């Protein structure tokens, strides 16, 4: 993988921010977009923008081909068995909400259990809280290990015959932990529960095979994997999706409409009410081509190397606490004794280094870590060791600046 060649595909990286070359270390929030994706979206709008699934005219069928072609690319990318199992939605949040509202309302009742973990993103907590409140089910948490990992044993102790849904993130957006979702899926299935996986932080960065994992539902977002915002995917096993009711009703998702009753289209369209996210899907298809061309294995190896490099540098710094396990994806969350994460992020930004500061949409995990906020550097295929060097140098600047104040 030629990193300079990769970087040349991302126009946004070629700029100065606050007088310094941009060092973008916030890809876990959203990734940058390569020109292949930007041009695919532009090409759609310039040449064949049209509504899908209805036009007899030429542009209509070109747009349909673009939209459905992207679905096939997604199917192949995550190795689903059929295009009927790939539903285009706004993003991971919408996808998990769909499962909770549709499958959850129909299959979870009083006395049942929903099992999640304390490291989840808010989007994989609140839909289940709401479902538990509405149905009288109990929301249970698999306790975390001290290093911020999930043990299969604790999962086995938490999931019972009363558990109806287990939902766990594949990779933590804070700790970088790679969770044993395949093993947890087996435990869920042994207990008659369905397994939901939040793949927002895994699909962009590593090869994912949904059939190998065995999960019943798997959700991810396009914008974290070089695609535009506003497009995401829910994968679901066909036999479950078939039985589920849509949660949005209107155009595009209907078969026959009468005055008092209507029927739905086949999968996957019955879940895609309204004019779909056509340009977004086209962009997602282009992003998949781009990522596959470089190779997901190469991308994963590159990011892991950067994470190790960053961890090595940070461990020698006095007063810096890094959260999470040694073995991790390209996410490094930390705090400095001398500087609050917001102040740190402002100082880093003044030197062109973009990091995230705050609770990272994971307030229960912040509580578990016993902090109110942290700073996070996250890596993607376009980051370099030089980026990490600039980041750690800037961190030193911030420590000295605030250290002087408190000295």
């Amino acid at each position, binding site marked *: 993988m030629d990193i300079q060649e990769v970087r040349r595909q991302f126009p946004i990286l070629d700029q100065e921010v*606050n*007088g310094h070359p941009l060092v973008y270390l916030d890809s876990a929030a959203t990734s940058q977009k390569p020109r292949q994706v930007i041009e695919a979206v532009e090409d759609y709008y310039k040449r064949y923008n049209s509504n899908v699934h209805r036009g007899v005219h030429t542009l209509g069928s070109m747009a349909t081909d673009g939209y459905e072609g992207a679905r096939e690319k997604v199917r192949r990318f995550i190795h689903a068995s059929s295009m009927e199992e790939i539903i285009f939605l706004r993003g991971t949040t919408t996808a998990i909400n769909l499962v909770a509202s549709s499958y959850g309302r129909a299959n979870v009742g009083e006395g049942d259990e929903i099992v999640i973990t304390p490291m989840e993103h808010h989007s994989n907590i609140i839909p289940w809280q709401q479902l538990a409140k509405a149905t009288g089910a109990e929301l249970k948490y698999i306790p975390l290990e001290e290093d911020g990992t999930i043990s299969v044993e604790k999962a086995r102790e938490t999931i019972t015959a009363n558990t109806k849904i287990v939902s766990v993130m594949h990779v933590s957006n804070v700790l970088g932990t790679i969770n044993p979702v395949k093993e947890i899926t087996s435990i869920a299935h042994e207990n008659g529960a369905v397994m939901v996986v939040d793949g927002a932080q895994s699909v962009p960065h590593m090869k994912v095979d949904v059939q190998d994992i065995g999960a019943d539902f798997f959700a991810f977002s396009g914008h974290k994997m070089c695609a535009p915002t506003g497009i995401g995917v829910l994968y679901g096993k066909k036999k479950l999706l078939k039985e589920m009711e849509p949660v949005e009703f209107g155009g595009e998702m209907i078969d026959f409409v009468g005055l008092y009753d209507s029927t739905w289209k086949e999968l996957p369209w019955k879940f895609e009410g309204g004019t779909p996210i056509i340009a977004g899907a086209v962009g997602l298809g282009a992003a998949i081509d781009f990522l596959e061309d470089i190779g997901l294995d190469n991308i994963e190896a590159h990011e892991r190397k950067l994470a190790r490099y960053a961890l090595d540098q940070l461990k020698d710094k006095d007063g810096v606490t890094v959260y999470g396990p040694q073995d991790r994806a390209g996410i490094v969350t930390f705090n400095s004794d001398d500087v*609050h*994460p*917001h*102040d740190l992020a*402002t*100082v880093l930004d*003044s030197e062109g280094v973009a990091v995230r*500061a*705050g*609770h990272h949409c994971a*307030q229960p995990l*912040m509580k578990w870590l016993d902090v*109110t*906020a942290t700073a996070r550097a996250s890596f993607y295929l376009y980051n370099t060791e030089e980026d990490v060097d600039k980041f750690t140098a800037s961190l030193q*600047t911030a420590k*000295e*600046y*605030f250290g*002087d*104040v*408190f000295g």
Partner: protein
Amino acid sequence: MSLDNKLDTLYRQVIMDHYKNPRNRGEVDGETLKVDMNNPTCGDRIQLQMKVEDGKIAEAKFNGEGCSISLSSASMMTQAVKGLPVEDALRMSALFSDMMLGKEIDPAGLDLGDLEALQGVQKFPARIKCATLAWKAMEQGLEEEK
């Protein structure tokens, strides 16, 4: 230290002094107006307690967690409004908001004191909410009192 000047306008010495030695940090005894407020996007939180007597803010103290800007602003705010009639405190809060938005302000008899040190925050849009958190808490407390 050779950080650029823009950063120095944000982190002025008086701000750092309030951050390091916050004034009015703690709790007010007896019956008080209590407001808990947080900034949901970043996790900063403040608990403000005020005592209003004869239409004046007789006492104002805070506890909380946050960055240098939110905590120094809370410290300066409690200092500035203590002893002020409620109307003047609300007027000062409006002035402070205008200052954060980069508008021309006319203090018209109100002593802004150390607060003017926070003027630099306006150049850092992402940090304005840090600076206004304590003021929003004060406004909410006084609104509820009305």
